């Protein structure tokens, strides 16, 4: 299953609902384009909802890092929401869990932005 994204606004925060696979090729490109598009339109408070992302490879991990740093470099914040066990495990073993702000409750994630 390829990746699909949909975005919505909640109290000034953009929630990006992702589903499918974030892997080398289409999945990574869709994520990259989505985040860049949001930033270009001034949406700098971003939550990636990964509840329905069932697979991610090293390229996908790289794309998450890229999204995080690109947003930060533009004065924004990007957080992760609702990680599946597989994605959570991958972020743990790559030590990226300490880098990302990971939330498991959407309302709390929205409130956590300054």
């Amino acid at each position: 299953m390829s990746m699909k994204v949909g975005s919505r606004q909640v109290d000034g925060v953009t929630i990006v609902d992702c589903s499918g696979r974030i892997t080398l090729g289409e999945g990574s490109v869709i994520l990259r384009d989505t985040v860049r598009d949001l930033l270009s339109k001034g949406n700098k408070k971003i939550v990636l909802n990964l509840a329905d992302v069932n697979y991610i490879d090293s390229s996908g991990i790289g794309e998450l890092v890229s999204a995080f740093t690109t947003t930060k470099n533009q004065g924004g914040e990007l957080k992760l929401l609702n990680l599946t066990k597989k994605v959570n495990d991958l972020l743990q073993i790559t030590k990226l869990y300490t880098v990302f702000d990971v939330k498991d409750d959407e309302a709390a994630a929205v409130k956590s932005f300054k």
Partner: protein
Amino acid sequence: MAMTEQRVSYTLDSSLETIDSAEEKATRIATELGFGDDEIMQISMAVREGAVNAVLHGNAYAADKKVTLAFERVGEELVITIRDQGPGMDLSKIPNPLAPENLLKTSGRGIFLMRSFMDVVEIRPSSTGTELKLIKRVHGPTAGGKEASQ
């Protein structure tokens, strides 16, 4: 192909489709061998990362270069070999992705993930290509359990 045979190999193009295909083959064979769900995911992801290295970094998508993928059951081990026809790689130049200065790099985690998921990872670079060997041992009662219960 059924893994009742001891060995099977594929010659694949240097394309993105090869990466997905290699992952699918690994998933199917690991399932046939009775590995548990977590191990199947680990094996298929390691093969995917190995195929990414072969297609992108080894053969650099060259149409005239092939990737060879082989699965072999050797005793209680699944031995997977991935070969490319690229210029070889300098293993000393692979950074540690867990080092603080590398955590925010957007690439360089493939070999680390393979080593995390497989029991043995051997990389043999040469001027005519790189050979990657991945070994997963049958662990515990889950792997092989289907056969044993019949």
